């Protein structure tokens, strides 16, 4: 958090996009920076769509004992091999359209910071790339993206709720006892997926979470 808040320093009238659930404590904390805070809890909107396209198992219902990894892999391979859509669209178009719907802001919108929290742990690679493309449209050069990436084999089946306690501490709350496999994205892979953003710094915390701060590149 400290590195994120350093990026806030000296910036007047910050525009911050929070892609997690609305947390009162975070609103109160960020109000000290004179932010205009946009809250768009992305995950609940993505889950039905992920399930419909044969994505990862429905969160909340998955446990380590019941995930059929072969079936998940087959679903992805089947999806990758499916013929083009009759309407001429393709998966990339579908993904871009979906994130375009979920993150629809006026064109002149520019965010100074995006709080992704642990959402990336729940997205497939194609989704991470599509999300980055959509966010890049609304982030000016120097805008920062804050993400928490797990390096554990298993993660809670749903994203956690994070509360900013102070400049150096976050509290997290798991919302389900179920678990699911974690994609465990490596830094190099994230840099490739999050095009338009460069890795500014990362910090390995306890509990198997790595804190990332990405910065929007110019151009």
């Amino acid at each position: 958090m400290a590195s994120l808040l350093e990026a806030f320093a000296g910036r007047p009238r910050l525009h911050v996009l929070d892609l997690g659930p609305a947390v009162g404590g975070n609103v109160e904390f960020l109000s000290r920076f004179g932010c205009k805070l946009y809250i768009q809890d992305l995950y609940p909107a993505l889950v039905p769509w992920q399930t419909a396209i044969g994505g990862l198992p429905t969160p909340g219902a998955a446990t380590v004992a019941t995930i059929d990894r072969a079936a998940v892999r087959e679903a992805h391979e089947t999806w990758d091999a499916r013929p083009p859509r009759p309407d001429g669209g393709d998966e990339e178009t579908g993904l871009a359209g979906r994130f375009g719907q979920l993150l629809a802001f006026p064109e002149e919108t520019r965010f100074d910071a995006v709080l992704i929290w642990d959402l990336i742990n729940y997205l497939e690679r194609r989704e991470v790339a599509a999300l980055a493309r959509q966010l890049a449209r609304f982030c000016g050069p120097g805008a920062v993206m804050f993400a928490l990436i797990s390096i554990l084999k298993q993660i809670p089946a749903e994203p956690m709720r994070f509360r900013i306690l102070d400049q150096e501490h976050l509290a997290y709350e798991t919302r389900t006892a179920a678990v699911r496999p974690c994609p465990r994205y490596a830094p190099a892979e994230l840099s490739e997926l999050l095009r338009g953003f460069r890795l500014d710094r990362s910090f390995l915390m306890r509990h198997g979470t790595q804190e990332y701060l990405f910065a929007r590149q110019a151009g």
Partner: protein
Amino acid sequence: MTIGKNGRVRADVFGNTVVVEGEVDGNLFAQQQAILRQSGAVRGNITAPRVMLEDGSRFRGSIDMESKDAAKPGPAAHGPQPATAHPPTPAAAPVSAGGNASGAAGAQPLHAAAAAPQASGRAPGS
């Protein structure tokens, strides 16, 4: 102005203190404070000097805590507006300024995350 638990409003809401316990699909403009209770859900923008969201409340939109443009009739130009816009309703007289403003009532157990050391250095390469 209080939107009760069973209230369903599809309009902009204006008041001195705006308390939402039900559902609002529209923008909130409060001169003093906007409070979203645990049972409340708002889809729209909030403009108020102080905003309080109780844990469990649902919100989607932007929160602008500059005071100068709060509670003005009509959607004020605070910058980007959401894709959906609603025609403003006439300013309503504050009905109730009650409500507990003592802070978020988060009853969920939280586990303190590990404290990060002062220096956030660069992580070793992958």
